[in-house]
C-alpha cells in the first residue's frame, strides 16, 4: 500500500466504489403516459442508453413518436381540466411534499442511477444533485397554497399543459427545476428527458406512482430531438420550457413564434470568472476548479473563462496547476472521484475539436498527468493560457473540462472582456474588497453573479440569462411567473 523512501510517503486511496446493487434497472422501458408505463404507439421504436464511463448498455428506452406525444398531451390536458387545476393549492402542495420526501428516502438509489447514466462522480450526484432535487420540490411545495401572495397578481391562474425539454448535464435536477414550479402553480406537464440520460426521469415516473399523483399530471416521454420538436410544437401545449443549447433554443423560439405559447429558455453560457489581485488566492483557486471542473464542465453556467489580473496571473496559474494535479479522474461510482466521464461520444468529439482549434489558434494547452480509462468517454482537465478574446475557445461554449485563461490590467478592462460575449448566464468575482464586488456585479451583464464562490445553487434564488443565454427565470419566487397567467 504505502512505500516510504526518499521521495516521501505515498498515501494511495484504495478504491471506494458505491454499490450498484441499490438500483434496479429494467432491460427496457415504455413511455410514462397517464400514470402508467405504456408501449409506444407510433413507429418510434427504441434506442439504447449507455454508461458513458464504460460504454455498457444500461437499458433500452422507447423513442416517442408524434402519436405518443399527442397521447401524452391529451392525458395532461385531461388531468389539468378534470383534476389538477381544480385542486386546492394546499392539496397540490401535499403531493409535492410527498414527492420530495420520497426523493430523500430514495436518494442513494437516485444518485447511483444518475452517476451510471450520466457519468458524473457519485460525490456530486450524492452531495449536490439529489439534495437539490429534493430541496426544489420542498421549496415549491411551500408555494402551492400561497400563490396569491407571490406578487404575480391577486388571483394567479395556471397556464395549462407545459411541454418541457431538458438536457443531459443535470438530468434529475433539471427535471425538478421544470416540474416542481409547474405543478405547484397548477399546470400539468409532458417532459422529455435528454436522449443520453433518460433513466432518472423514468425512476421519477415511478416515484409519481408511489406518491399516488393523479394520472396524467406528469407524463415522461423519452426520445431524441425530434420528439422534443414535436412536443414543443404541439397545438395543445400552453407553455414551453427548455434548457439546452442556444442553437436548439433558437429553433424552439422560431417554432413557437406567433403561437399563444409562453416560453422560457435557459441556454448556453461562457461565464467569466474574474480574479482581482487582492483575491483570497487559495479559495479563488478552489473556485476556479469548481467553476470549470464541476460536473466535467458540463454546466451551462460554468466559469469557462478565467479573467485574472495580470499582476497575480503567474501565481494564480501556478497554484491552479498544482491543484489540478490532485484532481482524481475516473470511475464515477468511486466516492473519491473528482471528475467523471464525458457524457457521450458526440460531446467528447466536440470538446476535442474545440480544444484542437484552441491549440491551432496558438493558445498554450496544459493538463496534469492523468491516466484515463480505456473504455468510455474521457477528457483530462485542461487549461489554455495565452488566450485572447479573438480565439474561438474564448467565445464558444465548449461544455467540457476546458478553461480559457485571459488576463486583464484594470477593473474596467475586466468588465469589458467579461461582457464581450453573446452569452450572459453567469459570472464570478473574486476580491477581498466588498465595494469592488458591488462595482463589478453592477456592471456584469449576466443573470447570476457569484462573489467569492461559484456554482452555488439554491431553490430560493432565481436563475436565468441575459442575451443569448435565454429568457425567463427559474427558481425562487421569480420562477413561479413562468407558470402563471396573471
Amino acid at each position: 500500500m504505502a512505500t516510504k523512501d526518499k521521495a516521501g510517503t505515498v498515501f494511495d486511496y484504495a478504491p471506494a466504489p458505491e454499490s450498484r446493487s441499490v438500483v434496479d434497472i429494467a432491460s427496457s422501458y415504455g413511455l410514462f403516459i397517464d400514470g402508467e408505463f405504456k408501449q409506444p404507439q407510433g413507429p418510434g421504436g427504441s434506442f439504447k442508453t449507455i454508461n458513458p464511463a464504460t460504454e455498457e448498455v444500461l437499458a433500452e428506452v422507447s423513442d416517442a413518436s408524434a402519436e405518443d406525444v399527442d397521447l401524452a398531451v391529451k392525458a395532461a390536458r385531461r388531468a389539468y381540466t378534470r383534476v389538477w387545476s381544480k385542486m386546492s393549492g394546499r392539496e397540490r402542495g401535499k403531493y409535492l411534499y410527498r414527492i420530495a420526501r420520497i426523493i430523500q428516502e430514495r436518494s442513494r438509489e437516485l444518485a447511483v442511477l444518475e452517476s451510471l447514466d450520466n457519468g458524473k462522480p457519485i460525490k456530486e450526484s450524492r452531495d449536490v444533485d439529489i439534495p437539490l432535487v429534493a430541496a426544489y420540490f420542498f421549496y415549491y411545495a411551500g408555494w402551492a397554497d400561497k400563490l396569491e401572495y407571490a406578487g404575480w397578481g391577486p388571483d394567479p391562474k395556471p397556464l395549462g399543459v407545459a411541454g418541457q425539454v431538458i438536457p443531459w448535464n443535470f438530468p434529475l435536477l433539471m427535471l425538478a427545476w421544470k416540474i416542481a414550479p409547474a405543478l405547484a402553480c397548477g399546470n400539468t406537464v409532458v417532459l422529455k428527458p435528454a436522449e443520453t440520460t433518460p433513466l432518472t426521469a423514468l425512476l421519477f415516473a415511478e416515484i409519481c406512482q408511489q406518491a399516488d399523483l393523479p394520472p396524467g399530471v406528469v407524463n415522461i416521454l423519452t426520445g431524441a430531438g425530434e420528439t422534443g420538436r414535436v412536443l414543443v410544437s404541439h397545438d395543445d401545449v400552453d407553455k414551453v420550457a427548455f434548457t439546452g443549447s442556444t442553437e436548439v433554443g433558437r429553433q424552439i423560439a422560431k417554432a413557437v413564434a406567433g403561437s399563444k405559447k409562453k416560453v422560457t429558455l435557459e441556454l448556453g453560457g461562457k461565464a467569466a470568472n474574474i480574479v482581482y489581485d487582492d483575491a483570497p488566492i487559495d479559495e479563488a483557486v478552489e473556485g476556479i476548479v469548481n467553476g470549470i471542473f464541476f460536473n466535467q464542465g458540463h454546466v451551462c453556467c460554468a466559469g469557462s473563462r478565467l479573467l485574472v489580473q495580470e499582476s497575480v496571473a503567474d501565481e494564480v496559474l501556478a497554484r491552479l496547476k498544482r491543484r489540478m494535479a490532485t484532481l482524481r479522474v475516473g470511475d464515477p461510482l468511486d466516492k473519491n472521484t473528482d471528475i467523471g466521464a464525458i457524457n457521450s461520444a458526440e460531446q467528447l468529439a466536440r470538446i476535442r475539436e474545440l480544444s484542437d482549434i484552441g491549440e491551432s489558434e496558438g493558445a498554450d494547452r496544459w493538463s496534469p498527468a492523468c491516466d484515463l480509462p480505456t473504455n468510455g468517454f474521457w477528457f483530462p482537465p485542461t487549461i489554455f493560457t495565452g488566450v485572447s478574446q479573438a480565439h474561438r475557445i474564448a467565445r464558444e461554449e465548449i461544455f467540457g473540462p476546458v478553461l480559457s485563461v485571459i488576463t486583464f490590467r484594470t477593473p474596467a478592462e475586466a468588465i469589458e472582456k467579461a461582457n464581450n460575449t453573446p452569452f450572459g448566464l453567469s459570472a464570478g468575482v473574486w476580491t477581498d474588497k466588498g465595494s469592488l464586488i458591488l462595482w463589478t456585479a453592477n456592471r456584469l451583464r449576466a443573470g447570476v453573479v457569484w462573489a467569492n464562490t461559484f456554482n452555488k445553487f439554491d431553490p430560493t434564488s432565481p436563475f436565468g440569462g441575459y442575451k443569448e443565454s435565454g429568457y425567463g427565470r427559474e427558481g425562487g419566487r421569480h420562477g413561479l411567473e413562468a407558470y402563471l397567467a396573471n
Partner: protein
Amino acid sequence: MPRLCLGRHDSPQPRAQTYAGSVTTSVHSAAGLAEATSSDAALRRFLHGLPGVDQVGAEVRAAGLATRSIKTTAKAFAIDLAIRMVDLTTLEGMDTPGKVAGLCSKAMRPDPADPACPSVAAVCVYPDMVRIAKDALGASEVHVASVATAFPSGRAARDIKLADTQDAVEAGADEIDMVIDRGAFLSGRYLEVFEEIVAVREACARPDGSSAHLKVIFETGELQTYDNVRRISWLAMLAGAHFIKTSTGKVQPAATLPVTLVMLEAVRDFREATGQMVGVKPAGGIRTSKDAIKYLVMVNETAGPDWLDPDWFRFGASTLLNDLLMQRTKMRTGRYSGPDYFTLD
C-alpha cells in the same frame, strides 16, 4: 539520533514536485523575507500583505476534503501512520509521576497485545514531569515534549518564560511546545511576538550545541480569524519555529480542519519561498480515527506527501490513541473489541 533533531538548516531540500512547475510567490521572495522582520512596521506590512483567507471558501474546502472515503488498505496505512504521529498528552494539575510513567509505557507499547503496533511520536507533559518521562522512556525512540512559557495562558514575564523553557530542556526535553503571547498579537505588537519566539528558540539550545525542537502554539481559538491564523503561521515560521501548532487543548474551539488547512497552506508556501519545511500539529478535540484520517487526507492533498511523516505532522491528543488502536484491531481481526481491551493510561 532522535528523529526530530535535525536543525532547520538541515531540513530536506524541496524535492521534485509531483505537479508541474513550482509556485513562486511575489510577496515571499527570500530577500523580502529577511526584510520583513526588520521592524515592527515592516513585519506588519508583510503580514497584512499576505493574501486574505475567505472564511466560507476555506470551510467549504475543508469539508470537501473530509468527504474522501478511506477504506481497506488505505485505512490500515492511515491508522498506523496516525499512531506514529501521536503526541500522547497529559497536561493536568493532578499529574503525578505515576500517571506520567504509565503514559510512557503506553507510548512505547500502545497495544500490549500486538508487538507490531508502532509506538507514538512523543509524550507531552509539563516541565516538572520531563525527567520522569525521560527516565520512563529510557532508550526508546519516543520523544519527550514539554510545554513551556507559562503554558497555557502565556501570561508571565519574558524571563520567567525563558527560564521555564531552559528548565525543561535541561531536564531532557526533546521538544518544547511554547505558547505565543496572544495579547501582544491581537493588539498588533507583532515584532514582540516574533522576538519572543526567537528568544525561546535560543533557550532551546543545549550546551552541546544541539537544540530541542520548538513547536509554537497559536491558540487559534483565541485568534479566531483565518487571516490571523495565516499571519501568525508566517510570523512563527520567520522566527524559526520547527513546528506550528493550533492549540493548547485548554481553550475551545481547539484544532479544527479549516484552521489546519490554513496552516498547511502556510507551510507549503513557506517551503516554496525558502526551501525549508516546517511541521504542523493540530491539538485538542481530535478523538476518533475518522477525524485523524480526515487530517491525513488534508495533509496529503494540501501540503503534499512529504508531510506524511511524524517528523512533519503530529496529533496532540490523549483519547485519540485508543480509538486508533481499536480500529487497528478491527482491521486486523475483522472484529470490534470493547474499550476494556485497551489500556486507560
